[in-house]
């Protein structure tokens, strides 16, 4: 497999898959930044980072989940957790997940328990969806 990702060179399914991820808003420009960092010295850089992301984010999400089980909700803390998580998401270009993070933070500031809980569920879904899509993509690329 090519160590350097050249969008123009990714043929067939890999290229299409990749493009659709962008087109459908799953990924944003930051993902391209990662791709550009991939080179011969780090031929699987993108995949490694994504793997690291999913491993690390599982922990962050668990913390948030736990915090959401408290009553009453500590919105400041939740907001803080989410800021951290959002930083990770944005770093890999996980656009939809990041948007859910922003939404969640807004609910925190508004003090809406319901909003937070609902958004969190959505966030987890997006997070999981992206994971599957990326895994499929890496199989091809």
């Amino acid at each position, binding site marked *: 497999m090519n160590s350097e990702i050249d969008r123009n060179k990714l043929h067939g399914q890999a290229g299409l898959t990749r493009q659709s991820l962008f087109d459908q808003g799953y990924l944003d420009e930051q993902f391209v930044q990662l791709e550009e960092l991939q080179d011969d010295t*780090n031929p699987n850089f993108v995949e490694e980072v994504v793997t690291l*992301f999913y491993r690390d984010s599982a922990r962050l999400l668990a913390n948030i989940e736990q915090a959401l089980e408290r009553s009453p909700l500590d919105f400041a803390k939740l907001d803080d957790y989410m*800021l*951290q998580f959002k930083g*990770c998401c944005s*770093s890999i270009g996980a656009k939809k997940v990041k948007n859910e993070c922003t939404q969640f933070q807004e609910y925190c500031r508004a003090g809406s328990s319901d909003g937070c809980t609902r958004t969190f569920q959505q966030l987890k879904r997006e997070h999981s969806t992206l994971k599957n899509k990326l895994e499929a993509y890496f199989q091809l690329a």
Partner: protein
Amino acid sequence: MCGICSLDEMNFGRRVVGSMSLPDSSVVARNDPGDVVSDHFPAGLRVLVVDDDPICLTILDKMLRTCHYDVTKCNRAEVALSLLRENKNGYDIVISDVHMPDMDGFKLLEHIGLEMDLPVIMMSADDSKNVVMKGVTHGACDYLIKPVRIEALKNVWQHVVRKKKNEWKELEQLGNMEDGDRQQKQDDLEYSSPANEGSWKNSKRKGEDEEGEERDDATTLKKPRVVWSVELHQQFVAAVNQLGIDKAVPKKILELMNVPGLTRENVASHLQKYRLYLRRVSGVSQHQGGLNNSFIGPQDASFGALPSLSGIDLQTLAAAGQLPAQTLATYQAAGLGRAAMKPGITLPFVDQGTLFSFEAPKSVFGEGRQQQQQRNSNVKHMNLLHGIPATLEPKQPSIMQQSSAQPLGSLNNMQGNTHGNGQSSSLLMQMVQPQTRGQMLNESIGGQISRIQSSVGQPSPRNRMAGNEQVMACNLASQAAPVVDFSVNHMADLPGNVYPLGSTTTPGGVTTSHQKDLYTRRLAQM
């Protein structure tokens, strides 16, 4: 590889080490890349990146390496701090996340400012204005919003160069100050063509060289800068605590510390910074005036006001890792540095019998002013300007370390933060107090400025306090003002709060002694 600094830096370095000859200065980094400055610069820039998030850290590390920087990554602030402490001259710049579990990024920023005087860039996914402002007031030379793009990292080297340059300027100004009229002219020369760094620096150097001999004889112009190491700072804090913050005057502190080669001026400037720091950490509640006053020095009547910073606080602060002093120093340095451009800025030269009875405080902001009076400000003063570490008489090379420990940045922060609010920083900038020297000192204290001002009788708005600093900063930026009149004249000209002029660095983040030293050394290695 060494980060090649500009010719100016090289020259400066040479000067510092005693070389009198003016290098053939036509070479300036940008003009003659092949000459003195390595074509590879900024490759090899030594970056310490701190982030508890492994993903971000991995990506940043990779990005920085792609920029050909020499990267050290760290996921804990405490570890980063020890790395920096163990390797004082081992890094050129620090990039740190704001949110970290073991230590707040701003705190780390302060520490670095106080102890190492390195440029620090903060990062966060949080782009809210108040947090960014906090970065500024704490002395960060830049604030990056995550996700960080490689483009943003490519240019971080500018902060390193800028800092050094500012340092150089300050030093030169100090040198100029020493020479009175001559210097004035030089300053004018210097300022007259701010853009032409190479040329004016050269001319400055020439001028200085001419006076070099006499300066050496008469003053400590070329004295190495004092580097307030952790140990030195601890001694300082111990001495201050022993005396009691209210009674801690430079002379006594100096005596207690009993460090050969350390001058009262050094102590005075450091004390000023320390006071600012204490004020800052103790919060607004601390009577700012008290702290500030202390900074200002005995002159300031309100001086004794340091309420919370009594011995206990000081000790606590001291225990905290000497940050306060250093941070303060940083601020001072920063403030001073900026304003200090004026030759006379160095700590109120005791000899001068100056205005600063207090010695340091005044000089912080009013240093320039005082300096002017003193004229013989020597290099010592310069240090102040830069950042904090009081210039150290050259006789004690041990004291002076290449890297000024005082991070101006943090100092700057401190000032700004005295109140713990961003406003302070702006205040700092604005504070320049052209008025009486004594007042200037008071004013320089920073946030507390408002207090001090009143105590000082400053007619100007509270922001004036930092006037000196600000003025200085402005002056620096404007470069047009004669050094001596920096603060005063410029204040008027300044539009208002002026953040570190001329640079994106933190307010008053002039301390570049470290950088300078770094480059000096690197040059030596070349």
